[in-house]
């Protein structure tokens, strides 16, 4: 129900921002986020950043995945 793509915030102006994925750019709204900075990764859905993406948590999940082999 909810396609969302990780995009990088390139620049911010008020509640709108320019975001990029793979070289494709679009103006998006960041009005749903409490704090967002240039360089942040966010999830883009229907023209809105609906959430920030935490690089640390992403790395943690990948680390869990890498450890699965050692557990089995």
């Amino acid at each position, binding site marked *: *129900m*909810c*396609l969302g*793509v990780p*995009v990088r915030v390139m620049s911010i102006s008020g509640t709108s921002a320019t975001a*990029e*994925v*793979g*070289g*494709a*750019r*679009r*103006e998006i709204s960041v009005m749903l986020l409490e704090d967002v900075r240039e360089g942040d990764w966010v999830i*883009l*859905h*229907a023209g809105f950043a609906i959430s920030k993406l935490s690089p640390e948590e992403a790395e943690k999940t990948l680390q869990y995945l890498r450890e699965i082999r050692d557990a089995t």
Partner: protein
Amino acid sequence: MPGDKILLSHGEGGKRTRELIRKVIAKRFENPVLSPLFDSALLGRLDGEIAFTTDGYVITPAIFPGGDIGRLAVCGTLNDLSVCGARPVAISCSLILEEGFPVETLETILDSMEAAAKEGNVTIACGDTKVVEKGNADGIFITTSGIGIVNDGWRPAPENVRPGDRVILTGTMGDHQAAVLIARNRLEIAAKVLSDVAPLSSMLLDILSSFGGSVRFMRDPTRGGVGVSLNEMAESSRVRIVLDESRLPVADEVRGICEILGFDPIYLANEGKALLIVDGSAAEPIVDSLRKTQYGLNAAVIGEVVKGSPGVFMKTVIGGLRAVDYPVGEQLPRIC
């Protein structure tokens, strides 16, 4: 004629029509077959099996990043001939212009038709021009037909395909449709994507003359993309094709656009790519040869022909297997 617009009288057969045809159109395509402007072009004697194809071109915008409707019309017809193994001999050019269409834009389009025809080593042999009232067309429509000669020897065809063959794609998927989508700007996405529109005749005919019978079957994956063309190939050859998702070439920008909109690049149109089904043992040498050409730099083996009921399947990046079906209609931006 800067600032000039196409008028209804340009299509009514009088002086204006003559002027448009002679000074704007025929002047650019000048060649011994066309220039007498007879009712038919006389091509002389042709030796070999004759391939004949036709296609209508409608596109918004008429000029897009990487090409225009003129280049599209010539390349589309050239490519349709060459994937059948035919050396293009002559093409026709039928224009339907909307009243008010800028003559300067028409000139740009005609120039790129002539450039593409030169590149593809083909003569624009005959043509027609009609003008319709404003509102009755979208600027310009072009229809091109083409004939080519299949020289004695090998002709790629569906019945040649057999298990063990490999599938080659001559470059990245979806560039043309992505470029046009961006150019329309309705979705307000910016990306540096150029249409791949290109004449493939010399590349494909060279491959055919070097590798002959190893090239079983070819198609150009235009509307509906690689996904649709491969389904048609599997259907007509009555074989099962299994693609390797990790080897499908896609430009990053096109992937980015597809991720945002929920599109699958496998169904996006290409205008300068060919799909080749080739003998398995010749696949790598053919890819090597393709990669030495201007329009084959990113050629790759993307799948293989296996035993089984006809259809197209995909070994996914994570090792799963799934069907690749025909899409229903065009892809639309979605939230789901």
